[in-house]
């Protein structure tokens, strides 16, 4: 348990310490800033489409740092050393997912405030967005670590990594954006179900991918 906590803090320190994981948040805000310029100054249109844009930006922001999540640890021999100590690959993957979820999820939720304002989302829609993203963040982190583990051996893997998990993320987008639709009553439960499924599968799938890196 001590080992897992040490591992978690190490991942979080590397995420925030280097400043590298702030990049997704900057990217997220960049999209929110650029979108109104592209759509034009029509506030009702912006309010209708902005929520979906937040979801797309959040998904891409989660996938942005995937070449930093597993590859450096693999190349530095950290993963081998952890395996020698008998830590299971699934546990390591779960810790990495948790650290990524906190590392990018917390700043993302904070960045949601200015983003919602830029995209003309009223208070009620902003709360809906925040609760939806909070539900989806563990699943997004799961997908990011999974694709990072799958592509850690490939050159230029991060581009392929995004493509790999995009189909899996589609349900999150549909139900997440669906929560904003006043007629979409069941969207929250469906989003929670889809997120739960991905969060549970994530450590096992990513753990198997980590094991594959050693062969």
């Amino acid at each position, binding site marked *: 348990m*001590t*080992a897992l906590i*040490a*591992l978690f803090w*190490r991942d979080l320190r*590397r995420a925030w*310490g*280097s400043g590298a994981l702030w990049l997704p948040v900057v990217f997220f805000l960049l999209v929110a800033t650029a979108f109104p310029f592209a759509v034009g100054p029509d506030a009702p249109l912006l309010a209708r489409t902005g929520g979906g844009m937040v979801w797309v930006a959040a998904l891409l922001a989660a996938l942005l740092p995937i070449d930093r999540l597993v590859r450096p640890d693999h*190349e*530095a*021999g*950290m993963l*081998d*050393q*952890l*395996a*020698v*100590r*008998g830590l299971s690959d699934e546990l390591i993957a779960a810790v990495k997912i948790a650290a990524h979820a906190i590392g990018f999820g917390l700043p993302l939720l904070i960045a949601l405030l200015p983003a919602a304002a830029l995209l003309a989302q009223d208070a009620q829609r902003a709360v809906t967005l925040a609760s939806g993203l909070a539900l989806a963040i563990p699943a997004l982190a799961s997908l990011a670590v999974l694709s990072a583990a799958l592509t850690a051996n490939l050159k230029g893997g991060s581009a392929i990594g995004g493509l790999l998990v995009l189909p899996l993320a589609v349900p999150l987008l549909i139900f997440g954006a669906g929560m904003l639709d006043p007629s979409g009553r069941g969207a929250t439960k469906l989003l929670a179900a889809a997120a739960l499924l991905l969060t549970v599968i994530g450590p096992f799938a990513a753990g198997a991918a980590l094991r594959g890196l*050693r*062969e």
Partner: protein
Amino acid sequence: MSAALLRLERVACIRGDRLLFEGLSLTLARGEALWLRGPNGAGKSSLIRLAAGLLHPAAGTVERRERCALIDEAAALDGELALRRALDFWARIDTVDGDAVDRAVAAMALAPLAEVPVAMLSTGQRKRAAMARVIASGAPIWLLDEPANGMDAAAAARLVAAIAQHRARGGALLLASHFALGIPDLTELDMGASA
């Protein structure tokens, strides 16, 4: 035979499509040291990784009775951290206290480098740091793959002294190296000529 810390029974190793070795058996008891020698590509590193559990044998069994500590070509220390903090991370993973790290740092004469970021260390210094990680871990089985690469004579002497102390405490050593390093009472395993 009850004292065997590590036992490999008729193992075979295949990398890619190539059979590196087969029918290889070895046991390592407390205080023993075994030197794997052979040309490049003979499978020394693969055998070390088999013993560490990082590779699975294509045939045969690998049995470990105790914890292992491994050195391979990667130091596995975070480059941006000061050396001491990078070693402390592994001490927390291995649940050993700061004194063990202090002793390991002293054994490899790393105290003057404790505050230097790992990324700034030279090749030989990084090998010494990796060796300090192994010493601090307190693991009874040491699996060392070319531990003296890049080390100067003084550092290599400290490595030999650390190995002697480890064996005196009942630890075992599996060493893959081109040189015997001047370790006394060393059993040899010649992995022979290979393609």
